[in-house]
């Protein structure tokens, strides 16, 4: 697949060629001089934390889309803990932490409360994968089903990181966590468990569902912006590698997010009202090995004797995603 790109020739006044910043409206939210900096620096996330990176881009883009008129509800989890060590806070937007399992409902309540007062303030709910797909799932489904005017963002690091890396309903097969150790004959998290929250969200036929990662940050910003163009229930599922929980090098966070998509393990797509409207095709397909080997949580699959059978099953899962979403097909990109 070849993509074409318009070539432009910038001249600096004479024939000499030069560079220039993009027009303001074309710049990424982060490159914008007046970005909100919704989560300011100095928080206590680990080095290389994908969640900190993802949340900053999501919130800044949402604040821009909302014209600064936005409130947010946050579930218990790493993001909440590392951003609010008493008596400090990293949040430059109005922010409420209530409980671990209720962030979607708290966000629903915010939306209702604002509507009741005739205010147009937008609402963003945020949680980790545990707060989203496990303990908060009932509230989330209720929020979707009622089509409450909330953008709910799940920062998926594939486990309960805040409490020390236990398994969640989003932990992938074969991954080692504190509750799916590699002891015994089922190495790591069992196959055949877990769920796809984005597909379940789609089954509610809500206005907008998308997946994204911290590898393609412009894409992440675009999806937030598009989500904010809709009203009603919207869901964004962002893959945010966690160096601690994945036993990976902190400098590999973005690389891992990219390999997750390029291997097909984490498909990038958008859906409106229950129908897929666009997928991001894989540019350079890689075998799942490339992704898995960088992570200590899969170390038991490699080496001697290793578990090539399990790697093959993971590869088969990636292949299924590629087929299901047409990730290698041309024209698979967003319309």
């Amino acid at each position, binding site marked *: 697949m070849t993509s074409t790109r318009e070539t432009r020739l910038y001249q600096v006044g004479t024939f000499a060629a030069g560079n220039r910043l993009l027009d303001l409206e074309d710049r990424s939210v982060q490159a914008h001089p007046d970005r909100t900096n919704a989560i300011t620096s100095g928080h206590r996330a680990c080095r290389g934390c994908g969640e900190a990176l993802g949340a900053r881009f999501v919130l800044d883009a949402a604040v821009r889309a909302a014209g600064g008129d936005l409130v947010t509800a946050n579930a218990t989890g790493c993001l909440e803990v590392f951003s609010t060590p*008493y008596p400090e806070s990293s949040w430059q937007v109005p922010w409420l932490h209530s409980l671990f*399992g209720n962030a979607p409902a708290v966000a629903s309540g915010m939306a209702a409360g604002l509507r009741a007062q005739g205010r147009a303030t937008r609402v963003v709910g945020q949680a980790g994968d545990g707060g989203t797909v496990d*303990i908060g799932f009932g509230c989330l489904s209720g929020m979707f089903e009622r089509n409450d005017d909330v953008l709910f963002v799940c920062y998926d690091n594939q486990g309960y990181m805040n409490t*020390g890396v236990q398994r969640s309903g989003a932990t992938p097969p074969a991954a080692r966590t*504190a*509750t799916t*150790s590699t002891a015994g004959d089922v190495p790591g998290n069992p196959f055949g468990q877990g769920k796809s929250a984005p597909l379940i969200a789609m089954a509610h036929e809500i206005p907008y569902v998308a997946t994204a990662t911290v590898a393609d940050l412009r894409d992440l910003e675009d999806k937030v912006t598009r989500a904010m163009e809709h009203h009603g229930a919207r869901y964004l599922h962002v893959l945010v590698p966690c160096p601690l929980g994945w036993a990976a090098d902190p400098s590999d966070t973005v690389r891992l997010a990219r390999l997750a998509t390029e291997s097909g393990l984490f498909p990038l797509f958008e859906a409106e009202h229950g129908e897929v409207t666009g997928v991001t095709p894989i540019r350079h397909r890689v075998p799942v090995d490339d992704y898995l080997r960088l992570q200590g949580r899969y170390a038991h699959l490699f080496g001697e004797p290793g578990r090539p059978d399990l790697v093959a099953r993971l590869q088969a899962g990636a292949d299924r995603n590629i087929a299901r979403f047409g990730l290698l097909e041309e024209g698979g990109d967003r319309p």
Partner: protein
Amino acid sequence: MCRPQVVAAYPISPQTHIVEALSDLVRTGELAQCEYLTVESEFAAMSACIGASAVGARAYTASASQGLLFMAEAVFNASGLGLPIVMTVANRAIGAPINIWNDHSDAMALRDAGWIQLYAADVQEATDLHLQAFVVAERTSLPVMVCMDGFVLTHAVEEVDLPEQEQVDAFVPPFVPQQLLDPDDPVTIGAMVGPEAFTEVRYLMQQRMDTAIGTVAEVAHDFREAFGRSSGGLVRGYRLEDADTVLVTLGSVAGAATEVVDELREQGIAAGTLTLTCFRPWPDEAVREALAGARRVVVLERAFSVGRGSIVGQDVRDSLHDLPVTVVEAVGGLGGRPVRRSDVRRLVEGVAADLLPTGRLHFLDLDHALLASAGVR
């Protein structure tokens, strides 16, 4: 060691390492014939224990704080159904403000849930209480919480005499359920009961709790016979004979209390201390007997009832209502603030000198400078 057959648990600090270790034991097969459920919430954890227990499996879970409250509806249900589930509570404060450190607000919030509540003074006792809990639960068909102070005990390394597995097997016999969902003999558990009999069901529950006082004491006695170590039971007194001033505590403060009592005795102050191991059912007689000789009692707890004051203090006062004993109520060690011997000594000295009025809750360790900085006097 107690051979649970179903463990259903959800991670929460400071309980996580308990369930992680159990999950490992199950996965390696060291804990044979045990199913470990990585549930999606505490509500599911307790509910799974209810299901497991009803079909005759020994069920166990562990939780704390927010998790304990998240499962609250199922906690009340488990006792209402008379299911002998055992739960470790790694005591932790309740938010907001969110706080992962130790106090007793979580277990105290569920003191009326119809569960037996046992509090461990140290790591050894926490170990021993678990053995006793399964026996008490299954003998009374009531659920039992084993409360141990979060971090202070859950994350402490102390010497522990770990009993041999054979000894444990002899002490904790296989589970014989008193009620069972059995296709050969179908029963309906959990029927709706209206005004015509609801009171009576509750009355019977209260009666069962009353008999549990005897069972807790009896099992502690059997434990001493079997293991040669005194652990658990209803209450434990220290230097109570001829004590004028008695400090009542529960949980891990007990050790500091004994140290302080020794120091005060050296200074000529006739102090003693009483540790409550069993808080529910309330061991009225044992408390009364232990404290009858005292002139002043001070209750120091790690929780209080907002809008009222002391929780345990109320019960103590009630047990002593017709005796000439003054009861002073104090709270300290909230949200992980350590309860130091020096604080405890100051408290008991103050009470011994009749300096602390009754009828109000005393805060052991308020940081007045901090309050002043917020403009509060």
